[in-house]
């Protein structure tokens, strides 16, 4: 389904933050905000819910640690018991360092892959940018024209009051 979007392009992060706050205050739906670098306070200004990524990472860490303990137990105590220095076959202290490493590996690699998956990033994906400048020195706030009460002229005026350098309408089925 195609959407009618209104893109406000700004030159500074302060104006961008002000535009985000003003848009939320008036109840506009913010599709996304584009910036050439991470801007402090954007998440709060947009009212984004806390990321769920930590839970995924926590679960993957537990999974990695669990699998690793099971695997090491199985290899050293079940499938091929080896006597090392007279220690019990099932020697938990000896398992700890590698368990830790595998936990970190699962959690860290899993975090990156989960992030790519959630953002639908994959090799050779074409960038979807409202204006090319957001990779350089421009900030963009993208609003969706949800219904007929959305007056593009009025919003354009609001953005221009906040020092927007450029406001344009876009129709797309891609940006989401």
């Amino acid at each position, binding site marked *: 389904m195609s959407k009618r979007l209104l893109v406000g392009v700004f030159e500074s992060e302060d104006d961008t933050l002000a535009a985000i706050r003003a848009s939320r205050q008036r109840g506009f739906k913010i599709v996304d905000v584009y910036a050439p670098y991470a801007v402090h306070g954007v998440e709060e200004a947009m009212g984004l819910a806390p990321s769920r990524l*930590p839970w995924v990472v926590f679960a993957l860490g537990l999974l990695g640690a669990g699998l690793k303990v099971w695997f090491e137990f199985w290899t050293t105590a079940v499938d091929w018991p080896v006597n090392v220095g007279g*220690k019990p076959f099932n020697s938990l*202290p*000896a398992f*700890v360092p590698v368990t830790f490493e595998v936990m970190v590996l699962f959690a860290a690699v899993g975090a990156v892959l989960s992030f790519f998956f959630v953002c639908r990033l994959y090799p050779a994906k074409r960038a979807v940018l409202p204006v090319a400048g957001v990779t350089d020195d421009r900030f963009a706030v993208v609003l969706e024209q949800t219904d007929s009460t959305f007056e593009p002229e009025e919003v354009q005026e609001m953005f221009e009051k906040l020092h927007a350098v450029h406001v344009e309408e876009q129709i797309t089925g891609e940006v989401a």
Partner: protein
Amino acid sequence: MNAHDFSFEPAAKIVGRMQVLAGIGAATLVAGLFFAPQRVWLNFLLVSYYLVGLAVAGMAWMAIQYVSGAHWSTALRRVPEAMAGILPLGAVGIFCVLIFQPSLYPWTGGLHVEGDAPGFKLMWLSLPFFRIRAVVYLLGWLGFAWAMLNISHRQDSDGDLSHTRKNTRLAALFLVFFGVTFWLASFDWIMSLEPEWYSTIFGFYNFAGAFLSGLAALTLLLVWLQGHSALKNVIREQHLHDVGKLLFAFSTFWAYLWFSQYMLIWYANLPEETIYYVRRLHGFWQPLFVLNLVLNWGVPFFALLPRMNKQRVGVLVRVSIVLLAGRWLDLYLMIMPPFSGGKPQIGIWEIGLVAGLVGVFGLGLLVALRRAPLVPVGDPYLAESLHYHA
């Protein structure tokens, strides 16, 4: 910013409470010298070392911020500075033990040595050299603390960046000196209580414990000052969040070193090394041994794992209290087992001296906090810290 807005005047109530606690400590110490001298001297060594650890943790914190060029913490600097200001109190405690009761250390009555360097060990563990080393360590740390605090306070009046540069150089020198001397000090004052046993990582493990307890004390102080002083509008949620992250990280660092020491000794399984853990893993020591890990790592790790919890003042305060109790237990387990006849003794002497520790630390801090404005008003990086975003 005006220096007068940030002068500190503690309420009479808190001063009174700290005086009562310090009085209890002093009374316990005096009474203990008659009724249970060895036990009380060991506990006195414990609390003095605890106090020294808190003070040098304040120094280390300050030095790390200078050397790394961290500006987020500039507004909070007077609090670790005040912690460094109590170093003389801890140093007096350590000197008392070394002057009046060196016989706590079994090697003073003749050393039974094995291994390939008995000559070196005999030379190292001789009373005059032992005392000279303590003087070098403590006077060295005191000298750095005195110099860095003076320079920092002088900056309040002229706001000159050269003071920051000077302190950055001093901080780098301090960290090198401190890295070596604190490691050796923990060998001298704590590890040599069991002179036949040795562990090279002991010093790093002790640094981790001291710095962790310092962070916990810093957290409590920041929260308290936020409620009871002009720092109310200075300490922001983001500052506390970052201190929470450090608590979480250093708790795990402590556990990492604890486990490194334990696992290597467990793996090698040499009798002269395992005896240390044999003593601490049998009978009534075992629950304390496990509790040590729970307090210093288990509780802080899981309590501070979610991001939100690192920002919640209530969680930070509770975790800090757990960590400070854990630090005491950690030291108790390092010091007491060879002396207390097979089972842990925790009673009036231990509690009395801990009360004294809290009282002396509190009084020392209240005095140290009054020496200078609560915020380094002349620091050129102050504004950056005041507007800090995580």
